[in-house]
């Protein structure tokens, strides 16, 4: 389904054919559920939030101004909803120090990488919301700052600044944790 088909489906819905909205849902269900999942890390809640986003999109279809792509409008609407939903009921985050390595045997190669990756992803959830949102959107949009800025309805400069500060905070949160295996090896 292309952008033109998105427009056609929206036109049909606006003309009263509610069932045409199914095309929109089928096309965008995966990105919207995955975006929600990145925000909350809970599959069930991600689907609930995505459903609410589709419902809200359905209600406000008439407000989509055609100069922006349908996807841009939809992602901005969904992001707005997800952010406010998570402000209302925040994700329960686990402190970094409470995450134990999966295996107590000496850390090497793939296992060390896996633990480090896990720690980095968890660390994102310990960041203040505005930095977390910027990081999540930036990586969701394949590191495209304009798209992340559109979704967050923020200027690109603000998103860049938040990304930079967010990464800095991640680095400082993770520094002791990522040095630890090296120190253990040396001992």
């Amino acid at each position, binding site marked *: 389904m292309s952008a033109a088909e998105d427009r056609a489906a929206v036109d049909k819905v606006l003309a009263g054919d509610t069932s045409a909205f199914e095309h929109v849902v089928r096309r965008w269900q*995966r990105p919207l559920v995955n975006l929600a999942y990145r925000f909350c890390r809970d599959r069930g809640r991600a689907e609930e939030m995505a459903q609410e986003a589709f419902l809200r999109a359905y209600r406000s279809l008439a407000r989509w101004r055609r100069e922006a792509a349908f996807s841009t409008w939809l992602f901005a609407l969904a992001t707005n909803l997800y952010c406010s939903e998570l402000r209302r009921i925040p994700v329960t985050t686990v402190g970094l120090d409470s995450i134990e390595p999966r295996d107590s045997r000496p850390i090497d190669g793939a296992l060390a990488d896996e633990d480090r990756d896990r720690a980095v992803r968890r660390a994102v959830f310990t960041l203040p919301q505005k930095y977390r949102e910027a990081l999540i959107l930036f*990586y969701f949009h394949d590191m495209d700052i304009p798209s992340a800025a559109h979704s967050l309805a923020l200027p690109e400069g603000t998103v860049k600044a938040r990304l930079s500060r967010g990464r800095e905070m991640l680095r400082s949160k993770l520094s002791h944790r*990522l040095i630890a295996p090296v120190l253990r090896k040396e001992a």
Partner: protein
Amino acid sequence: MRNDDFDRILSKEQEIIPSSGFVSSVMNAVQREAAAPPVIPFPWKRALPGLAAAGLAMAGIFVAGVMLFVERSGAQQAPATLSSAFASVFEVWKTVGASWIALALALSFASVKVSMRFASGKK
């Protein structure tokens, strides 16, 4: 850690696939939404004259209060202490019956909020 490391780790997120019933669940919700009667919008046009009158009345009361306050404090000299200033404000407050006005406004606000909540179908 360098930015490249963060980019590499955070870009390779696992993708989840929506459950098989997701589309039908969304469409059921959409159909329900389509079948529901439209939400009655708040009648701003009708309410506007009343709101404007209330605003004017409030402004009038405020001006009257300020004038009364200035008149009294002029008659009693300037208040020497903070407590006497509060006492004269309280006196003006009592004279213009501001407590009753505040109570009436709070009740009106609450009744409008409740009506709007019922009208929008929220519990």
